[in-house]
């Protein structure tokens, strides 16, 4: 999705420096600290949405794989031993290195995307559906990440940092679970009611954050982080009392299974398990993309995100936009919970929220705060998760699944440091050289 307004080269450095004390506070709330925080936030948002091109992203992924390969090599005793005899048998060391790395990555590929052996099996009377098993696992893993990624991305575009996708996820999960086992409804309706409930559960939290920011100026980063803890503890409380959400006769923090009627169906039956959840996520991404680039509401969001003061001067209600975008962001995070509770898990536990909310931040970052970018980034992360688990099994623990977290971290690191990527790959910088050079000039 390319929308022209964000394709520009911003000059955040200039904007950041030229702030004089006599400049009117944008919100009417005094205090240099607050405005500086907002300034920093804007610069970061601009860097994320506009600083790195697609090329940079691809190179960042590539570079992360290279560095990950080095780690794989170090964790393989055969290879380290071969390197200790590098001078007597250099060819052997290199071959072992190549084997080790390529085996690990090919296992990840087989687990997450396509396993050639299932293809040949299909030719000999095996199951065709099995070919698609890795891809559908990837899609299933990606689903909640795409939705939390959208949650963070849409808020980004309106200039807000939604660190609270995790708490909003919990909000959605609580409502979906309660509606899932607590009420009985006809099959299709039950699913829809649970989905709407999850959306509302997250949206209420997001709305609350938006209202706090609009009315009192409370910074959304702080409020959302704190609300995360509130929601974790609320979940813990609810799951510890059978009168609330705890499964009867349980000592663990675990909720009852939701009704079968409330489960999201899988398209085409089990093995190629493209859940309805995945389709919901993709549909939500298209809806967000349309909203942002083709609707008046999205125009408002983007204007508020790019320049709250210009938005105000042109009659846009900035506070209302904040509330609305946070409501939508919360709803999307809640929907993410629904796809897990109604899709793969069918049961809420204290650990259910996992890292979906925080992974959403990285997904949004990698997707450059664009809805379809979030889909691609979500799929990549989903594939890494699935592939990592598969490779761990296939190599008997030789390649730890944790390597995936390292890869994710590296990708994000490299994406966030385009200058590093440009230096490594000798790309020419496209913008802002003048100002950077000036700064260097003064500082020797």
């Amino acid at each position, binding site marked *: 999705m390319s929308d022209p307004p964000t394709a520009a080269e911003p000059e955040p450095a200039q904007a950041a420096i030229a702030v004089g*004390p006599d400049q009117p506070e944008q919100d009417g709330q005094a205090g240099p600290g607050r405005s500086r925080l907002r300034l920093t936030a804007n610069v970061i948002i601009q860097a994320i949405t506009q600083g790195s091109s697609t090329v940079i992203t691809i190179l960042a992924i590539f570079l992360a794989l290279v560095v990950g390969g080095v780690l794989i090599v170090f964790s393989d005793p055969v290879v380290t031993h071969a390197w200790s005899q590098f001078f007597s048998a250099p060819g052997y060391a290199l071959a072992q290195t190549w084997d080790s790395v390529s085996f690990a990555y090919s296992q990840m590929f087989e687990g997450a995307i396509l396993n050639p052996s299932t293809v040949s099996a299909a030719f000999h009377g095996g199951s065709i559906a099995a070919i698609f098993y890795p891809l559908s696992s990837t899609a299933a893993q990606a689903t909640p990440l795409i939705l939390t990624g959208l949650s963070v991305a849409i808020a980004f575009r309106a200039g807000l940092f939604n660190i609270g996708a995790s708490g909003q996820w919990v909000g959605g999960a609580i409502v979906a679970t309660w509606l899932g086992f607590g009420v009985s409804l006809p099959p299709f309706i039950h699913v829809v009611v649970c989905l709407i409930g999850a959306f509302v559960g997250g949206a209420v939290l997001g709305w609350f954050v938006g209202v706090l920011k609009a009315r009192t100026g409370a910074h959304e980063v702080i409020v959302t982080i704190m609300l995360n803890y509130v929601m974790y503890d609320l979940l813990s409380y609810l799951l510890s009392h059978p009168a609330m959400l705890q499964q009867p006769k349980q000592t663990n923090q675990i909720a009852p299974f939701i009704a079968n009627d409330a489960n999201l169906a899988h398209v085409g039956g089990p093995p190629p398990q493209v859940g309805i959840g995945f389709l919901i996520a993709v549909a939500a991404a298209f809806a967000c993309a349309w909203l942002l680039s083709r609707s*008046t509401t999205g125009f408002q969001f983007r204007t508020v995100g790019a*320049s709250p003061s210009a938005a105000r001067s042109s009659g846009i209600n900035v506070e209302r936009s904040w509330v609305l975008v946070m409501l939508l962001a919360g709803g999307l995070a809640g929907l993410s919970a629904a796809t897990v509770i109604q899709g793969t898990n069918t049961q809420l536990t204290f650990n259910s929220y996992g890292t979906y909310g925080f992974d959403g931040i990285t997904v949004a970052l990698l997707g450059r705060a664009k809805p379809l970018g979030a889909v691609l980034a979500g799929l990549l992360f989903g594939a890494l998760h699935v592939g990592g688990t598969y490779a761990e099994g296939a190599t008997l623990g030789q390649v730890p699944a944790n390597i995936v977290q390292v890869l994710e971290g590296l990708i994000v690191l490299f994406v966030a440091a385009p200058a590093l990527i440009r230096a490594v790959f000798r790309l020419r910088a496209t913008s802002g050289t003048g100002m950077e050079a000036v700064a260097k000039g003064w500082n020797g």
Partner: protein
Amino acid sequence: MKLELRGITKRFGGLVANDQIDLVVQPGEIRALLGENGAGKTTLMNVLYGLMQPDQGEILLDDKPVHIRSPKDAISAGIGMVHQHFMLVPVFTVAENVTLGVERVRGLGLLDRRRTRRDVHELSERFGLQVDPDAYIEDLPVGVQQRVEIIKALLRDASVLVLDEPTAVLTPNETLDLFRIMRELRDGGRSIIFISHKLKEVQTIADNITIIRRGKVVGERPPSTTGSELAALMVGRSVQLRVSKDEARPAQVRLEVRDLTVHDDRGGMAVSGVSFQVRGGEILGIAGVQGNGQTELCEALMGLRPSTGSVLLEGHDIGDASTRDRLRAGIGYIPEDRQEDGLVGAFSVADNLVLDVYDRPPYASGIALNLGAIRAAADRLVSDYDVRTTSVLTTVGTLSGGNQQKVIVARELSRDNKLLLASQPTRGLDVGSIEFVHKQIVAQRDRGLAVVIVSSELDEIYALSDRIAVMYEGRIVGYCQPDIPEAELGLMMAGATAGEAAHAAGQTDGSQATHDPDLDEALELPGALDTKPPAAEPQAQEPEP
């Protein structure tokens, strides 16, 4: 130090930004580089400062060729530069900022703060800079921050000082201070290159003026040269420094403000009980030194700042209406800070052209944007208002200041308005763009709109106003006609009433200040120009308030 640029040529692709430029600056000279935005002044200075390498030509210092590959080289050769955008750390003190990069240390790498502060203090004393070494940058006004930049250059032994559009960010008083400092520096033997597109400033301060147009030196003139000659050289055609306009034909009252009181950000009184009326077909110029409540007045009129009192637009009280509703009610608004409030820099020209009408037909149906209609309107406005841009999808932040302002003017004037409120409509623009904007504003008046111009530039007030209101410390201290002598208006802007000003300016004939300074009196005389009967305006069917 004598600085000489010889045959400097710099190309960007097909564009020649500097074409064989020769420039000699003698020690102890203030040399002005005059040219429109985009004429190549800044490119030339970037070459001098080592930020860019010239394709041809050489730089000589005291007749010896030097190679300047980076700002570091430039600094060690004794060239200092003060950019439009300051390179200061807001949370550091003045002393810490100026020493950044050339820290003075004692043994063990300890910073020698005392010596730095003493150096700053000394420089500050010597050149009358009046900067406190211990003040934090974020607490200082823009004008003082600029002086910190100057100290920074001086501390690095700059003998040639380049000031890139230094007055763009300054108030008139700060500008005068800067000029005083520049003279001190010159008398101390330093050379100054002063980049500007403001004729008056250049005529005031420069010893010699080099005019650049489209990358070429088109002339060198002494400061005694007339403004129109300089303008013609700069623009390449004769320019009207003051747009010609017919006598105003005021019709009915369109805007009436009663007892408007507005507070500033710190809770102080910014505007106290201001009342005035503006009629259709007249331009009311609100003159005043910046910071006397004009900004707050405009924001209050637009609903961007809470206020008490009433604002009547054609008799309807819009005092409680939102900004959006006020725009809808027919106010065209050109905000003071174009980059901050007028435009979204990261958006395209097309998006900026619909910034306050994007949700109305034909640009939207329901909540769906009609991109085709937006695009078509943008194409039309860009050609109608002569916005120089490669495409309507170009990011507005990449356009020159003049073209950015044209985008705002196009957007605000293309709506069907009753009132135009323009705050500092030509700040930072070159003469060609000023002429354009002024013509458009006068055309709005002639269409029967009530026009309010807020400006701290006297030239602009004189050029546009049919009637002048002077604001001082949040009040309108008096009204006068645009034929009032400048000295008198200046005194009123300093707080004198019209009578006092006329008296102090040595006007025995009090007829110059046409109005009784008393506010209520003045209110009774909004149509000071009512010498003619109200013209039959097509829009004049509104009821009297």
